[in-house]
């Protein structure tokens, strides 16, 4: 293999090119990213960066070491437009083409948008550094705006927490009756909801947004309940969709990300995928999944890069125990494994509600399916959480 192209220059793409070089690939290595910035870390966007505690330089994923040592053919600010799988050629916006022997797809996701409202000033999504800097400027302008967060998933709730920490009035609107219940189960989701309510977020649950209007700086968010939220800034956090438009017409299965086998390889020869664009078969759970978290991008990029370089018969399965975290106020929520409705949840240490004089509870909880440990959650209890992740990882499946 002499030429490898990696499409996507965020965490997964960067870790893929780092791994390819570390594993001894000396050929031409091209990294394509649609943002103008060198690879940066996204988790702080909704937290330290948004609150103005960190400046963008601190998000540099190479920690100032630069990209030169990787000897890359770097294409930043350029979007991949099409893939010609027969010719083994990626076409970039603007017409440039890149021939490859191996391709690693790490084009990530884009923020999902409402069918209305996004043309208005003061209506934001939060996915990129530029999104975050725009939102930060709006939130920190005097006098502090009132904010409505639409969608109370992890991003929405982290933004709501950051806004409260900036002293802003915040409303959060969520279609589900209980935010995060699908991911964390009802008891833990209730504890997270209670934290936001204690911190003064006005929650509007089980309602749809029916309209969004602006009159000068004043925005009105119309809810299906008939309520109208008046605010100056709106943040839409209703999830993401995989950036697979450039793969159309290749015959690849693109339903909810690009489909891969257990080895992170797509149906095209010598084409792998990693990060939150990849939907792959995780043998451990006997489930085809797509995971939108930081640790997944790192682990899968390393695995996919190694498999791309290996002869087909030596490629290995990628079967991790997924891990993610979320920081809200001073709460570090950590989760390992896969929970779903019907799993039996139990508190194994601490509790769901803070004790007297405590701001946060310290919680370790487990999720079991037919008696088998399938997930673990912790509030500010990393030791126990990692112990449970180890226990799950040590098992075959």
């Amino acid at each position, binding site marked *: 293999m002499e030429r490898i192209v990696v499409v996507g220059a965020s965490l997964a793409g960067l870790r893929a090119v780092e791994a390819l070089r570390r594993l001894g690939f000396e050929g031409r290595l091209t990294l394509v990213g649609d943002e103008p910035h060198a690879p940066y870390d996204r*988790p702080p966007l909704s937290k330290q960066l948004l609150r103005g505690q960190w400046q963008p330089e601190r998000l540099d994923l190479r*920690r100032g070491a630069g990209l030169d040592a990787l000897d890359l053919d770097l294409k930043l600010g350029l979007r991949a437009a099409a893939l010609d799988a027969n010719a083994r050629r990626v076409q970039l916006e603007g017409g440039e083409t890149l021939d490859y022997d191996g391709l690693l797809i790490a084009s990530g996701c884009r923020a999902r948008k409402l069918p209305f409202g996004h043309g208005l000033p003061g209506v934001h999504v939060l996915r990129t550094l530029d999104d975050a800097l725009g939102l930060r400027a709006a939130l920190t302008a005097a006098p502090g705006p009132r904010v409505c967060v639409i969608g109370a998933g992890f991003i929405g709730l982290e933004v709501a927490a950051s806004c409260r920490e900036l002293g802003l009035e915040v409303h959060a609107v969520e279609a589900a009756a209980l935010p995060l219940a699908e991911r964390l189960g009802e008891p833990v989701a209730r504890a997270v909801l209670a934290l936001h309510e204690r911190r003064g977020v006005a929650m509007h649950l089980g309602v749809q947004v029916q309209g969004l209007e602006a009159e000068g700086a004043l925005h009105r968010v119309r809810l299906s309940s008939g309520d109208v939220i008046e605010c100056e800034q709106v943040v839409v956090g209703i999830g993401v969709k995989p950036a697979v438009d450039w793969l159309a017409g290749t015959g690849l299965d693109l339903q909810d990300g690009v489909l891969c086998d257990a080895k992170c390889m797509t149906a095209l020869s010598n084409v792998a995928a990693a990060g939150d664009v990849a939907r792959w078969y995780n043998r451990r759970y006997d489930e085809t999944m797509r995971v939108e978290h*930081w640790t997944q991008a790192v682990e899968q990029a*390393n695995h996919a890069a190694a498999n791309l370089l290996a002869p087909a018969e030596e490629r290995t399965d990628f079967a991790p125990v997924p891990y993610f*975290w979320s920081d809200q106020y001073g709460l*570090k929520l950590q989760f390992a494994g896969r929970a779903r409705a019907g799993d039996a949840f139990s508190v194994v240490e601490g509790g769901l509600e803070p004790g007297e004089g405590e701001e946060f509870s310290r919680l370790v909880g487990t999720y079991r399916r037919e008696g088998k440990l399938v997930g673990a959650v912790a509030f500010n209890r990393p*030791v126990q959480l990692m112990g449970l992740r180890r226990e799950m*990882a040590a098992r075959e499946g």
Partner: protein
Amino acid sequence: MKVVVDFDLCQSHGLCTQAAPEIFEIRDDGFLYILNETPDDSMKKKLETAVRECPTGAIKLEA
């Protein structure tokens, strides 16, 4: 080989304790401790995994 942790960056995720439990430990106070700052080269692979998996980029290996 020397293991260096920037404790201003460390947020005690604990992934390093999974990658290299011989070297990293989080104790009940919630803080990370380095059990051996100068491990021999047999630990290199595990330590490189710990460096890569640290969500805050807090771990460095020096020659």
